[in-house]
């Protein structure tokens, strides 16, 4: 089967990016919107076609899904070590293709309404194109270096899109923060790659992931500080993933990233880019699983679990709706990581892996939906803050319904997509690690609670009086909402366990009824609480928060993590390191050079007296010179 045409999927957005980027001023906004949408829909069509052919036309060959690779050498290091560029087709990449292209297309369509009249309209679509290109490239990467390359590219496009309103200094700051934090994480990623490259002699996923491959079998060959060097590499690589996927403690950039336009948040910071970290771990799953009995994988699990809890708690107290969603995203990503962390490899063992991918898929859909909904709300009320909202259901019904669907989905209410994926995750957790399971279940409750806090806060709650009455968004914005809502409802019935498993063989998934019931109940409790607190305008919430007092305050300030980072960067890096170095450079290093020069001049001033102008002194020195030479060379320095 020939998959070369897949190369078009990334290339088309790239072309549209170059087109819109270079002829930025020449192209009329309307046109550029169409160009973007057209390009993306082509890519999307191709992706769907690919998915169809891959899963159903070709299907399994002797029980497993095949992996197709097409690549060319991009740069040689040694005759063995090289960077390839190419496409790798296997279940998860195909799945990701679908996710990315769907969301991206939706966002493109949505943006045509949302960004209307913005003077950077064309630029916006250009950046979207760039992002889509990079994301596709990342998904299709055949080796670590390629994935790193596109990893950086999505990073920069995220930077550009967060900083889209570049005249707003807050946006610029957020963009900088996002880029630098992820960059710092990528440092780990890069070093990990270097280690892998050196010790395994390849960057190729196929070779690395082969359970019978040398990499996985000889992981113990070299060790460093008690751990296998490969484990170190995996941990470092996970650091990169954690950076992109906003895992604790590298999460701080994500909330600020909400400075970007809402469609961007939907696309990049909810659905696609942020899951790159999860995807990376999934990509290297065999290594994580087999090397040193999954030591690194456990780290993944715990980090994921903690992040999801941490984020969920914070999400409860935030008042900026986009930030609530941001923390929710972080929490859900933690969920996925957690699922990966508790997954096994063969057959039904791999349920965690499957669940994680499943949740990635469903979450992408309903989280994008949530963001786009929030976007349309913001579009209507021109504010991000709950206090400016309330009882919007009257004004914007479609948004209301779709948002509700998404909220229910994420809260894991039967039979929406979220229910299925979340359930699988909990199953996996339950089977492997009770602690993590309890965390998960607790987080599920929290999720339901803050989601509906949000929902009620926006669409019900107090009767806000608006300056100019908000109205439903144009069709270009509501259409994607409906599509996504549709998917969020039904995508739960996709038989993921058949399609995507670590061993690519698939297995028969069956619903674990007791766990499902528990989960649902917890979810409903959360919703119920939210209903009590926020359905009608009342002061329960405030009393609660006052009751929690200091804890509330801490949560509200996101446990002061930004402040800590600020301290580190400003106080330590800038003032304690860079400052002294700059001064050292001026005073000491430069000073020495200066000193040499100045000394010379000073000496020359000091000794000018020798040239006294007295002919007799000259004579004296003349004779003295002669005599001294004579004495020296007759008596002392004789040879």
């Amino acid at each position, binding site marked *: 089967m020939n998959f070369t045409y897949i190369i078009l999927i990334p290339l088309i957005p790239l072309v549209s990016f170059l087109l819109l980027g270079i002829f930025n001023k020449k192209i009329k906004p309307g046109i550029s919107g169409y160009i973007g949408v057209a390009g993306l829909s082509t890519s999307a069509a191709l992706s769907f076609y690919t998915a169809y052919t891959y899963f159903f036309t070709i299907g399994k060959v002797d029980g497993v899904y095949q992996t197709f690779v097409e690549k060319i050498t991009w740069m040689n290091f040694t005759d063995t070590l090289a960077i390839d560029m190419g496409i790798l087709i296997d279940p998860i990449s195909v799945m990701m293709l679908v996710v990315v292209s769907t969301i991206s297309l939706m966002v493109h369509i949505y943006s045509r309404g949302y960004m209307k009249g913005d003077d950077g309209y064309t630029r916006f679509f250009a950046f979207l194109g760039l992002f889509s290109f990079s994301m596709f490239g990342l998904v299709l990467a055949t080796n670590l270096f390629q994935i790193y390359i596109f990893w950086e590219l999505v990073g920069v496009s995220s930077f550009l899109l967060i900083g889209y309103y570049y005249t707003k200094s807050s946006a610029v700051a957020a963009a900088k923060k996002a880029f630098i934090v992820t960059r710092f994480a990528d440092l780990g990623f890069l070093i990990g790659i270097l280690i892998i490259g050196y010790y395994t002699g390849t960057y190729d996923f196929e070779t690395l992931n082969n359970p019978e491959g040398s990499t996985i079998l000889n992981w113990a060959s070299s060790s460093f500080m008690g751990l296998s060097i490969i484990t170190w590499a995996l941990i470092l690589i996970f650091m990169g993933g954690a950076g992109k996927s906003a895992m604790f403690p590298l999460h701080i950039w994500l909330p600020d990233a909400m400075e970007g336009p809402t469609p961007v948040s939907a696309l990049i910071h909810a659905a696609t880019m942020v899951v790159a970290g999860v995807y990376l771990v999934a990509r290297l799953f065999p290594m994580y699983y087999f090397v040193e009995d999954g030591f690194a994988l456990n780290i993944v699990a715990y980090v994921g679990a903690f992040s999801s809890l941490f984020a969920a708690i914070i999400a409860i107290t935030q008042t900026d709706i986009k930030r609530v969603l941001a923390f929710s995203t972080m929490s859900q990503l933690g969920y996925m990581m957690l699922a990966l962390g508790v997954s096994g490899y063969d057959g039904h063992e791999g349920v965690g892996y499957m669940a994680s991918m499943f949740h990635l898929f469903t979450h992408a859909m309903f989280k994008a939906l949530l963001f786009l909904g929030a976007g349309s709300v913001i579009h209507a009320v021109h504010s991000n803050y709950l206090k400016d909202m309330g009882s919007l259901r009257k004004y914007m019904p479609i948004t209301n319904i779709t948002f509700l669907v998404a909220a229910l989905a994420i809260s894991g209410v039967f039979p929406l997509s979220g229910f299925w994926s979340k359930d699988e995750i909990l199953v996996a957790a339950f089977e492997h690690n009770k602690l993590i399971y309890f965390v998960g279940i607790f987080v599920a409750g929290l999720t339901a609670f803050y989601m509906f806090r949000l929902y009620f806060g926006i669409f019900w709650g107090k009767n806000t009086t608006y300056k100019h009455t908000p109205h439903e968004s144009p069709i270009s914005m509501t259409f994607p909402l409906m599509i996504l809502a549709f998917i969020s409802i039904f995508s739960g019935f996709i038989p993921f366990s058949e399609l995507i498993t670590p061993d690519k063989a698939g297995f028969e998934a069956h619903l674990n009824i007791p766990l499902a019931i528990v989960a649902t109940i917890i979810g409903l409790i959360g919703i119920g609480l939210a209903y009590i607190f926020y359905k009608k305008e009342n002061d329960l919430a405030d009393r609660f928060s006052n009751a929690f007092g200091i804890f509330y305050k801490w949560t509200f300030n996101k446990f002061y993590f930004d402040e800590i980072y600020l301290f580190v960067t400003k106080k330590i890096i800038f003032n304690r390191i860079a400052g002294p170095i700059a001064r050292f450079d001026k005073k000491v290093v430069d000073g020495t050079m200066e000193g040499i*020069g100045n000394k*010379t*001049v000073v*000496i*020359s*001033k000091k*000794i*000018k007296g*020798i*040239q006294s*102008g007295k*002919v007799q*002194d*000259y*004579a004296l*020195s*003349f*004779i*003295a*010179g*002669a005599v001294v*030479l*004579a004495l020296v*060379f*007759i008596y002392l*320095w004789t*040879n």
Partner: protein
Amino acid sequence: MNFSNFLLMRHEILLLTITLLLLIGEIFINKNKKSSLVHLAIFLFGIHTAIGFFAIDECSIFGGSFQTNNLIHLFKNVLNIGVFTLLLQSADWIQEKIVNQNRGTEFFILLFTSLLGMYFMISAGDFLMFYIGLELSTLPVAALASYETLKRKSSEAGIKLILSAALASGVSLFGISLLYATSGSIFFHNIIEVITSTNLTILGFILFFAGLSFKISLVPFHFWTADVYEGAPISVASYLSVISKGAAAFILMVLMFTIFKPLIHTWENIVYIVALATMFIGNLFALRQQNMKRFLAFSSIAQAGFILLGLITGTQLGTATVVYFILIYIFSNLAAFGVVQAISLKTGKENMDDYNGLYRTNPNLSLVMMLALFSLAGIPPVAGFFGKFFLFTAAASKGYYLLVFLAVVNVTISLYYYLLVVRAMFIRKNDHPIPFFKNKLYMRLGLLITVIGILVLGLYSPLYDYIYELSSIYN
């Protein structure tokens, strides 16, 4: 010996004739026509220079007290070219300032006499001839130094020069007498046979060396230099710094490589020390000079220090590099002095600050100056670079890496103050810059010759090969 042998002294005889002609002219040509004598002198000397290039076979006449060989012959030609350029550069000065005092011809007479002294000095075959040549070359210059009789500084310069010179010659005479005592002869070829490294010879050598170092102005025998250059007329300073220094360096080298060869283990150390002292002192003093003449004086002291780097080797390589360097040095320094001459003649300004913004008014002069300074500093592609590089190569060939390193450090220091002048001319702005002026033909010619020399001497390698081949006699 037959008459033809006299022709071997062609240089000397011709020059003497010219001098006498000028004397006669001085007597018979009446006052208001004197300036024609200037042209005559330059013309005659030009011819003399030209004739000098005809080959002359090696010889030693008068019982060996006068000897010449191709290298010496070449060197005399070099001196001739130098003096000729110098004359061209000073012609205007004489025309404008001196002739009306009715003392124009003296200048040439004295200059030529001194040059004659040089000839005898460098082709001397015994100490007597050498001594006479030395004095003959020194005394007229002392007279020339105090040439501007109306200037106090000029007279001071004259006195300082004559007194120091007398002392120097006294000292070296004492040294010579000691050498005579040990070797029993004043003839070089006899001395070579008998000389050995005894305390007395060493003492003699050192005293003698001091005497010559005075002319080359090596530290610590250099003090007169700056004052005399400052006080004397620029032409004279220029003459002192190029011709007489060059000749003295040359003869010192010849003697050290021939008769003092047995003392090499002593004098290479002496030269080492003196070279360092000279370079450092010269540069350090040059750093903060304002008066261009003093500035060039100290720079020329430093240059003398560099010459010693070639001298230290005592090999054919050393000889060749030294001669080559002196040749280049003559042109570079003449160019520098020429520019100073031109400017001071037109404006009477001799300070570095006066040169501020010179390029914008007199680009050509500034360019010549810059070339000269770069050549002195040893910046490629002008000749100075090659001269210095080869000198250092010579020193390094003997393994004096430290000395070379220090020397190059000195090059850097010197570059600093040369760049100060460049800065003044090119970078600094000036409210009252030296106005544009056009030089007379002679001056332009004089500068042109030097520029050609600076540009060509380095790049044109056969010249060096030729010198190298000639210097095979001293190794």
